[in-house]
């Protein structure tokens, strides 16, 4: 009998281990829509949960589950969960990821539902729908949009006797104001301008100087063309003149652009969208406002169009119900529910001027509305590159010595383009 017991014990242990190894992952229960979103925006998480609650009340047969994923490595996690067969039904994603989504057939083309339901896309800003469409495929929908603008410190403008920026300001006006505002040195230095050198503000500068970062077909890097070089040079010059900090300054803890601007140590700040207004409104003793980005010397301004969207995964088990919830998220009702935590401008023009948006402090006291709407005609969607992050890294790392003053603009741009051209050719192969 003891032998039988031993064998039984061994079987039991094996079973236990086998169960333990199953990982506890569950398939989505039928009728349950899983919505995946990153953890870095608590307001958005709260909102999606509230939307799910409201939706489930009106659709008792559908269950919506909000799944929060750490924002560090969010895209990687979403893609691997989809690739690994554990896909959510709906996932949050960003504009620059759209080409990757389309190339890998990760999301459904929403046009099939739009056609079937006669869904009126005309209720959205046309730029939003264009920005979310690639190869005639509508990749996702969103309840809001955002774009690059210029923040400025009213007190410092007044102190320097410079008139506040307007929509027709050019880059030369910015440089001239920066020169007048810059004062002091060391830790107490007041910078005339903070110019962030990540992709969006860089892309805007290049286009407003009449240049292009990539050719229209996305096959060639044009950062080494004369107008693009002039755009890069314009930023380097402001840094060299000491009106704007080099990246080394930002790398120091507590010296990020937001902190410097919030501490009242910068006259202007280029490199952010409407999201920073929400953080700035809590800062005491800072009189700040928003203006559109400056125009280039011979070309109108350019504004990087920030779109965070929700898409339906191709592998969703419950596509129709996922579409129902997605429609709710971007419906007038859903968007109204989102007003409190919404950082951008509503994606439906009919709701954009709702008093809940325009009567807020950030709009009334800091102009966080008009400059965005005024920028709408010149917004530029993110470049459609399936290996955007790799290309972006190559540009960022390649230009770094130039910002640090260790290499000249033309040779740096030429070198960067050589590498970027290789990467661009890879995405098509």
């Amino acid at each position, binding site marked *: 009998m003891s*032998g*039988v017991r*031993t*064998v039984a*014990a*061994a*079987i039991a*242990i*094996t079973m236990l*281990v*086998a169960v333990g*190894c199953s990982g506890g992952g569950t398939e989505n229960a039928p009728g349950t829509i899983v919505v995946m979103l990153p953890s870095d925006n608590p307001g958005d998480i709260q909102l999606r949960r509230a939307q799910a609650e409201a939706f489930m009340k009106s659709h008792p047969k559908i269950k919506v589950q909000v799944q929060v994923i750490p924002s560090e*490595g969010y*895209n*990687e996690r979403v*893609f*691997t969960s*989809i*690739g*690994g067969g554990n896909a959510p039904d709906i996932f949050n994603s960003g504009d620059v990821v759209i080409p990757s989504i389309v190339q*890998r*057939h*990760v999301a459904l083309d929403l046009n099939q539902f739009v056609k079937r339901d006669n869904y009126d896309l005309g209720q959205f800003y046309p730029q939003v729908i264009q920005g979310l469409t690639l190869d005639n495929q509508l990749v996702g929908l969103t309840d809001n949009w955002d774009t690059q603008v210029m923040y400025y410190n009213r007190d410092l403008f007044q102190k320097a006797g410079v008139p506040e920026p307007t929509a027709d300001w050019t880059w030369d006006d910015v440089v001239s104001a920066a020169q007048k505002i810059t004062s002091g040195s060391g830790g107490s230095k007041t910078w005339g301008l903070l110019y962030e050198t990540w992709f969006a503000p860089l892309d805007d500068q290049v286009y407003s100087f009449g240049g292009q970062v990539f050719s229209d077909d996305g096959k060639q890097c044009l950062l080494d063309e004369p107008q693009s070089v002039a755009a890069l040079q314009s930023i380097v010059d402001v840094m060299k003149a000491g009106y704007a900090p080099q*990246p*080394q300054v930002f*790398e*120091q*803890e*507590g*010296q990020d652009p937001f902190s410097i601007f919030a501490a009242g140590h910068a006259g202007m700040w280029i490199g952010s969208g409407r999201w920073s207004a929400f953080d700035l409104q809590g800062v005491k003793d800072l009189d700040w406002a928003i203006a559109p980005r400056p125009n280039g010397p011979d070309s109108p301004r350019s504004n990087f169009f920030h779109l965070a969207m929700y898409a339906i995964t191709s592998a969703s088990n419950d596509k129709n119900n996922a579409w129902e919830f997605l429609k709710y998220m971007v419906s007038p009702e859903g968007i109204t529910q989102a007003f409190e935590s919404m950082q951008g401008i509503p994606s439906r023009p009919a709701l954009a001027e709702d008093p809940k948006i325009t009567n807020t402090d950030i709009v009334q006291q800091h102009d966080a509305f008009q400059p965005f709407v005024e920028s709408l005609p010149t917004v530029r969607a993110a470049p459609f590159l399936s*290996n955007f*992050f*790799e290309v972006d*890294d190559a540009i960022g*790392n390649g230009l*770094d*010595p130039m910002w640090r003053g260790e290499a000249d603009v033309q040779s740096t741009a030429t070198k960067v383009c050589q*590498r970027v051209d*290789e990467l661009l050719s890879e995405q098509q192969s």
Partner: protein
Amino acid sequence: MSDQAPDAIARPLGDQTGGLPAVAIPVPPRPSLRERWLSRDTLAAYLFLAPALVHFLVFFLGLVVISLGLSFMSWDLFSPAKFVGLANYKRLLFEDPDFWPTFWRTTYYVVLVIPTAVAAELLLALAVNTRLRAIKFFRATYFIPVVASAVAVALVWGWILNTQSGILNWFLGFFGIGSIDWLGSPRLAMPSVALVQVWRGLGEGMIIFLAGLQAIPQHLYEAAELDGAGRWAKFRSVTWPLLAPTTFFVTVLEVIGSFQVFDMIYLLTRGGPAQATTVYNYELYQQAFRDFRMGYAAAMTWLLFVVIGVLTLIQFRVINRRVQYELG
């Protein structure tokens, strides 16, 4: 002996000490194949082994084999994998402009870490190899970083190395040294990460060295003292040569571990600034999970495996020959 039963073996027990006669130990009849493989005991033994075996086959050997196969494929997680032969390896070695800089950057990191780590671990082991009453407390304290979570370690070191409010810069300030951008400067970021990694591994090396030190017979030190050897002479002539196998073992482990560094880089610098700390495994991670080149990343894994294998072999061939394993 010849008159013994064929299935019994005569074994002389203690015949050298004299007296005891040879005793025949009966050998049980050889069990049949069926009995050997299917007896309850055998079956139970295999079933007890099964969890570990399944785990090994599925989660280790299976994955190793899959990753080798994957290194000859082009696969982005979503489209079906495509066989590309040696293309991934060719691209790695001859076409990818990031590969060699990343490799040499990793080598630089290894060169920074190995001598510092081995020396620091040995010194620490020597320091805690005493009979002080509270020595176990100190040994345990030095071992804490080894068991501490990498995230916690990175967080603490992030604060220590903070340019504005870090305790290191605050301390250096007393000597008139201005704020140093430890993790933000492309020149200093790698040595800073190496420092953190050395600190983190101190306890592990210390324990191994301590075991080595305690295995050295005490009488050798006494003999050396009789010959008039001082502390340094005892270390040079007794400790160091007899510790050689341990030093060799620790060095081999450090080389393997250093080439595989990832977590501290990911947590402290994310490969930056300006790729200054983009080491091999960080690049591999980006290739796999940012750019979804799974086949290429698998090829990178195998190449690293070969590099570490060759280096370990060289260490065994070159250094190990000089290591004295036994007294004599």
